[in-house]
């Protein structure tokens, strides 16, 4: 027997192999489902979670393993202070974004008008699991994420966990309620592993919850910029 004959025999054999029956896979594909957290270092940390309150338990936030010291609520968002920081990696702002789609496509999919800063034009956006994100160059490289929380039982999408001392504070964003969360916290976005986030401003405008993140984003600059997003 030569090698070509052996190849033919192997090819013929392919149809004859009695493979074990292929099982029906049962996948739990909730895009909001995240891994359970392993224990992190012991320190006073701040946990910021942006998620639907009704789904907080289902999301398995580290509350089961980290004591919640204090929390804040914004529409559809919870900011928690906990005693341990969950593990996370440092990655670029756009590292976990899905492929871009047009603004029109995202608005059709998500069912709400996406808010934009002036002069932004019609930028491509990144859509995933009821959220839409876009990278903007001004006032510095920032990531703007929006979600519509129709009611407390609607779909949840963002979860963010932050470490460190303090500095979370209520702010006024052009008449809308907001939360300023200093960098160094841990962010859980849909479809991506946890990452260490930069400075973040959370606020609500017209039923939309918005999140603006920048590595060196200053609080006052963030608030001024956020006030122009309509």
């Amino acid at each position, binding site marked *: *027997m*030569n*090698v070509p*004959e*052996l*190849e*033919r*025999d*192997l*090819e*013929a*054999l*392919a149809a*004859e*192999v*009695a*493979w*074990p029956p*292929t*099982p029906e*896979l*049962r*996948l*739990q*594909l*909730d*895009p909001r489902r995240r891994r359970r957290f392993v224990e992190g270092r012991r320190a006073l940390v701040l946990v910021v979670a942006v998620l639907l309150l009704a789904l907080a338990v289902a999301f398995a936030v580290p509350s089961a393993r980290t004591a919640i010291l204090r929390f804040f609520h914004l529409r559809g968002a919870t900011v928690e202070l906990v005693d341990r920081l969950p593990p996370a990696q440092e990655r670029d702002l756009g590292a*976990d*974004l*899905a*492929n871009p*789609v047009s603004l029109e496509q995202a608005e059709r*999919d998500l069912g709400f008008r996406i808010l934009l800063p002036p002069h932004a034009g019609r930028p491509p956006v*990144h*859509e*995933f*699991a*009821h959220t839409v994100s876009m990278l903007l160059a001004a006032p510095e490289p920032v990531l703007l994420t929006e979600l519509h929380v129709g009611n407390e039982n609607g779909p949840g999408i963002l979860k963010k966990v932050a470490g460190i001392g303090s500095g979370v504070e209520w702010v006024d964003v052009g008449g809308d309620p907001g939360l300023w969360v200093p960098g160094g916290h841990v962010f859980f976005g*849909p*479809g*991506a*592993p946890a990452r260490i986030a930069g400075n973040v401003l959370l606020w609500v405008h017209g039923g939309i919850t918005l999140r603006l993140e920048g590595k060196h984003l200053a609080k006052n600059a963030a608030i001024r910029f956020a006030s122009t997003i309509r």
Partner: protein
Amino acid sequence: MEGRPLEERELVLRAQRGDARAYEEIVRTHQQIAFRVAYLVTGNAAEAEDAAQEGFIKAWRAFGRFKPELPVRPWLLQIVANEARNRRRSAGRRAQLALRAERAALPGATAPSPEHAVVDAAERQRLLEALDGLPDDARLVLSCRFLLGLSEEETAATLDVKRGTVKSRTARALDRLKETYERA
């Protein structure tokens, strides 16, 4: 999209926007080949099922980063095979396959012919056993290429090696199988 049905690209794009049903459709299309890849690696049907299941879940979590212009099957097979390798490594043992030749004769075959060396059940079983007796690298590359019918690119992704390695490894594995088969 070369070599890929339009519907799959649409499913991929929808899945990347978080559409779980679209992803489940993709999984349904590829679950058999993925399970068989996992079975080849682990040598155990239950572990292969776990590996395929966990691999598909991991792929879902990473789906936002998949480039939709690429074929999805090699990417999924790579993730599932990697999961299977990890499980096998944890178990610390070699895969022991129990593949059997299914039918007593080739369809339509009435008598042995020079074109088909594998003409009866005993010969087919002997060839399978010779294949199973090869070292893992050789066994896997031949199984992927000939038993599963994977392309060189898919085999490279599955085995986590370069395409050139698949070529050279296949040639060496065939030589070795020929030797083993003839000796048996």
